[in-house]
C-alpha cells in the first residue's frame, strides 16, 4: 500500500519561495503567471492494512504543521 501526501502552505500564509519562482518565470518571459505556491509531496510505503486514517494521524502529528500548512492524503494501491 502506498500513499502520497501533499503539503501546502495555507491560503493567506505568505509563500516567499513561490513568489521568487513567480518572479523568475516572469524574467524568463513566461507571461501571465499570476501566482505560484510551492509545497511538498511525501510518498509513504505502508503495510498492506494501513488506512487513510493512519496517514491522517501521521500528517497531524508530524508531516504537516497545521498552524501554517494544509495537507491532502492520496491513497494509492
Amino acid at each position, binding site marked *: 500500500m502506498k500513499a502520497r501526501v501533499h503539503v501546502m*502552505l495555507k491560503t493567506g*500564509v*505568505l509563500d*516567499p*519561495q513561490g513568489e*521568487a519562482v513567480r518572479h523568475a518565470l516572469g524574467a524568463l518571459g513566461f507571461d501571465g503567471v499570476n501566482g505560484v505556491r510551492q509545497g511538498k509531496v511525501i510518498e509513504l510505503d505502508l503495510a498492506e492494512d494501513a488506512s487513510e486514517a493512519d496517514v491522517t494521524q501521521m500528517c497531524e*502529528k*508530524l*508531516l504537516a*504543521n497545521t*498552524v*501554517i500548512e494544509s495537507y491532502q492524503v492520496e491513497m494509492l494501491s
Partner: protein
Amino acid sequence: MKAAVLVFPGSNCDRDLAVAFEAAGADVEMVWHKDTKLPDGVDIVGVPGGFSYGDYLRCGAIAANSPITHELKSHADRGGYVIGICNGFQILTETGLLPGALLRNAGLKYICKHVPLKVETSASAFTEGYNAGDVLSIPIAHHEGNYFADDETIKRLSGEDRVAFTYTENPNGAKADIAGILSENRRVLGMMPHPERAADVGHGGTDGTALFRALMGAMTPA
C-alpha cells in the same frame, strides 16, 4: 541554579548557551537528545540554536519528537523554566509549548547580523533585568525566523503581555515585528535573536548578559 542544555544532532549554539548560563552562575549539564531523563533538580532547560536534524521536513519538526523533548514538555508542564533560542524557538513552536510557527524569511535570505531589539515587557524572569522599551543590540542568524500566527493569537499574545521582544527594524517579515514570546505562565521563552552571542565582551556586545543574570536571580521553584 541548575541548567540543562539539550543537544540534538546539528545543534551548534549548545556550548555558547552553556557558557552564558555558567557565566551567570548556573551549574550546567548537557543532555543528549536520546536521553530519556533530565538531570534531577533542573530549574531551566535551554533549547539551543542550530540545525537540529538538518532542518529536515521543517525546522524543529524532528527534534520536537525526540525522546528528550517529551521530558522537556513534562518539565514545562510542571512549571519549569525553558528558553528556546533560534532553532530552539522553532522546536518550541513545533512541540506546541509556544503558539505560532516560524516561516522562511520574507526576503528569502539567511540573515546574520546585529539587530536592534526592543524589550516589550520586563514582567518575566527572563526580561526583568531590562526595562520595557529598552532597545538592545543582539545578533540574529536565521533563514526561517518570520514569526507567523493567526490574528487572534497575535491579539491574545499582545493582550496578555506575552510578547517579550520585537524588532524595531523588522528583518524577516515577522508578524507584528515579533522576535520573542512567552508562554501563558511566562516561564517558557522562545526568541529568534541570540542573547548568548551577546554575553561576553569578546562577542562585541554584552546586551544579552542581563537576560541570563536576571534569570538566575528570578527563578522560583516549579
